[in-house]
């Protein structure tokens, strides 16, 4: 072949084309993939010494024991502590990803801290005109300062009570309800009737409930096929909002009274109501759990002899004696006169049951009330507050967790910081205490010392699984153990029955309205909605449809068609209290005429139990 430029080019071209028929370039593609695997867009995990640390989860009141796997001190995964007497080794989906909460994109980290401190101090001074050093202030007896605690029973709760006790007319408020002072003993129950309580879906301490599940028969009365309803031994499909009517029907059946009216109200037969009543008496001990605190459930527990057996008084760990002197009493929000609170401090840092804003707003003075919210989320009461103060989230903060509802014995455990809190966040109880001139920086230590001094119960340390009588642990060791992952559990106390509540009869069913043809049924816990949740929760809703995501509502296909809504479409949910935007999900398992909607603060604000509503496609 002549050595010309054309031939050289032909050779190069032919070689390139021929190479495509050899494995070489295709292997190069693999290598290219290998290089791109390490491109800067893919994050590199931390390296460091691997260790285990122990704490207790404070996301919800269950307070499950947690073992954190840490790399260089940074927690990278969480797991339950096997053999723990309260949480029984379990963690829920929120708890498993709890170490990611500090990095939640929607989390609040800034607020008007100085202005809020001034507002609290001014409000306290206005109610204490005689206090030394305060300016000439005017006290309005009917306009009070109050703290609303969504998770009572903590050491922080005692700090609030002490702080409000130091303010003339200061109020310490809780959500209240008959079950707020009660605990239940699932280990003693053989039949459990749930009036809409999500027993198998995060209620109580999930690990404990599931460990006891084999020992009791579960009857779930609910309008929709919730997770608990689908797994219960018996599901009673009742009309939305008719749980109080069912409870009063059962209470009547236990007294051999006619139940025809209640059968009509609930959509069940008289025979079904009588059968449930018979089962509660014949297969005892029985336990009746209300979904939304309803006094009727309380009455049935009393009738079937559950008081002192399956329902007992909730006891608190010992507190320093000095705290109990002059502290504000626990006052249920409902018992406060309307329009009487000028300054309301809401502690949403420890999430609990979200109280619809309408119920709180009524208690505030009409003109310019001051609402201060301690929260880490903009989604809850922050929407209604004048001042929003950011707080630390689990696992950044040191706090104690009161006993869960299914813990009949008093317990004391602490969530200890595994990572540092960002600058700018405040400790809510210390902040309030400081604003009224109280020092509460060492409250947890004082509480731990009081528990140790009482010298009863046992201390369980997680790292070694040891259980020691409290009396045998030195005070400093007791405090050290609590900070390294431990739990104090009281000895079996006297099984005192909680105080009886007045029974006021069945609640009213929502009236049918042609304008609002659907009934809204809230589903799943709002815990995740009022506090930051791990971004990984998309796995449970958007990426798998296992749960309804926030602001999503499910309709039966026929109901959706009648509303003109389509699957995945945007719509407006309207009730008599307001409107909010939702995304429609078409789901054949939802009964016709019902809108199953994920509970979030904005939805709870406009929907009560069984609220009438309509869906307007956008």
């Amino acid at each position: 072949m002549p050595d010309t430029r054309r031939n050289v080019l032909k050779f190069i071209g032919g070689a390139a084309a021929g190479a495509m028929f050899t494995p070489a370039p295709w292997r190069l593609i693999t290598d290219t993939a290998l290089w791109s695997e390490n491109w800067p867009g893919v994050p590199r995990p931390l390296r460091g010494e691997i260790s285990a640390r122990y704490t207790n989860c404070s996301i919800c009141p269950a307070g499950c024991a947690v073992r954190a796997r840490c790399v260089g001190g940074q927690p990278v995964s969480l797991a339950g502590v096997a053999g723990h007497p309260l949480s029984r080794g379990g963690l829920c989906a929120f708890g498993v990803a709890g170490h990611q909460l500090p990095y939640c994109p929607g989390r609040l980290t800034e607020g008007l801290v100085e202005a809020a401190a001034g507002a609290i101090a001014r409000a306290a001074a206005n109610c204490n005109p005689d206090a030394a050093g305060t300016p000439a202030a005017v006290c309005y007896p009917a306009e009070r300062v109050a703290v609303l605690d969504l998770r009572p029973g903590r050491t922080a709760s005692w700090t609030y009570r002490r702080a409000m006790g130091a303010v003339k007319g200061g109020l310490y408020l809780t959500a209240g309800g008959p079950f707020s002072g009660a605990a239940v003993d699932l280990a003693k129950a053989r039949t459990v009737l749930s009036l809409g309580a999500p027993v198998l879906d995060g209620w109580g301490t999930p690990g404990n409930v599931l460990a006891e599940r084999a020992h009791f028969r579960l009857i779930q009365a609910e309008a929709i096929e919730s997770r608990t309803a689908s797994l219960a031994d018996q599901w009673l499909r009742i009309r939305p909002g008719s749980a109080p009517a069912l409870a009063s029907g059962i209470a009547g059946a236990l007294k051999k009274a006619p139940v025809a009216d209640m059968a009509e109200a609930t959509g069940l037969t008289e025979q079904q109501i009588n059968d449930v009543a018979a089962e509660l008496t014949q297969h005892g001990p029985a336990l009746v759990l209300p979904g939304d605190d309803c006094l009727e459930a309380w009455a049935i527990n009393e009738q079937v002899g559950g008081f002192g057996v399956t329902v007992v008084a909730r006891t608190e760990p010992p507190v320093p004696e000095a705290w109990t002197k002059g502290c504000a009493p626990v006052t249920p929000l409902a018992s406060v006169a309307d329009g009487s609170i000028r300054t309301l401090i809401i502690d949403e840092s420890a999430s609990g049951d979200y109280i619809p804003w309408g119920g709180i707003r009524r208690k505030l003075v009409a003109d310019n009330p001051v609402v201060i919210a301690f929260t880490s989320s903009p989604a809850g009461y922050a929407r209604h507050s004048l001042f929003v103060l950011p707080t630390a989230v689990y696992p950044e903060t040191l706090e104690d967790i009161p006993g869960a509802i299914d813990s009949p014995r008093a317990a004391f455990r602490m969530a200890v910081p595994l990572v540092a809190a960002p600058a700018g966040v405040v400790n809510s109880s210390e902040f309030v205490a400081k604003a009224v001139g109280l020092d509460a920086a060492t409250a947890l230590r004082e509480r731990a010392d009081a528990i140790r001094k009482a010298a009863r119960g046992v201390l369980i340390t997680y790292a070694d699984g040891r259980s020691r009588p409290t009396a045998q642990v030195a005070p400093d060791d007791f405090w050290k153990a609590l900070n390294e992952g431990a739990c104090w559990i009281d000895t079996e106390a006297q099984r005192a029955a909680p105080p009886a509540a007045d029974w006021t009869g069945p609640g009213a069913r929502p009236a049918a309205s042609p304008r609002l043809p659907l009934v809204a049924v809230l589903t799943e816990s709002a815990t995740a909605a009022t506090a930051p949740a791990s971004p990984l929760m998309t796995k449970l809703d958007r990426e798998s449809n296992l749960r309804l995501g926030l602001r999503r509502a499910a309709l039966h296909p026929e109901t959706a068609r009648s509303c003109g809504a389509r699957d995945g479409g945007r719509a407006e949910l309207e009730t008599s209290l307001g409107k909010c935007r939702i995304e429609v999900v078409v789901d054949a398992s939802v009964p016709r005429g019902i809108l199953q909607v994920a509970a979030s603060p904005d939805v709870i604000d406009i929907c009560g139990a069984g609220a009438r509503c309509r869906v307007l496609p956008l």
Partner: protein
Amino acid sequence: MISEKKPGKICRYGMAIDIDKCTGCGACMIACAVENNVPPGNPGATDLTGITWLRVFKVDNGEEYPRKESVYFPMMCQQCGMETPCYLVCPQQAVDVDPATGIVFQMPERCLGCRYCMAACPYHSRYFNWWDPKWPAGMEKTLNPDVAPRMRGVVEKCNYCHGRWHAARQRAAEAGLKDIIPGDYVPACVEACPAGAIQFGDLNDPASAPAKAAGDPESFRLLVSLGTEPKVYYHSKKEWARRIGDPSRAPAPKEPSRG
């Protein structure tokens, strides 16, 4: 190509899942994502394009109330023991079967993203990275150092937390042992399940839960008629639920429902 045999005990890891115990809480799904550095869903991700190595489905018997019954059904890679479809179709040898454990695993750095394996998998247990893996600022610190995050354009799937297996082998080696200390290696979903519904073990060990499940008449496997010999055994006392394993006998859903 099957990898060369490694020294030590030959295991055949499998799972036994009691679907009567599963409450569908999703703790296993989250634990799996945390352990394996699966990123949060992209804003555009749906149930078809999201990545859930382990997914819990809700299945019912097709009846109306009051005869309606439902179960929650955790589904992950079934770790086919024979004629592994994804392994057979991969043009890049990005799928391999570990002869020491029987675990089918994916090598994302070899993967071209052709998705033949996704088409071949009869269990729909493989997921494609449609987007760059992204975590909110700061959350990279919570990533598991034993598992490399995957890039956009590759397929991934459950590998029984292979990183944990390596860590357990390392611990055994440090202790001067040839084989893994019994109970030292369990996948994240098994550890996380608060109901104790998922159990893990060596099918070659007759005392293990999966081996016992293999001989239980109330246990079943999915699509066993395909001859893929899946190593995940499901257990239910409900006859209709056991029929899920055989689609020709399973009730057809009347209308779509969530979960």
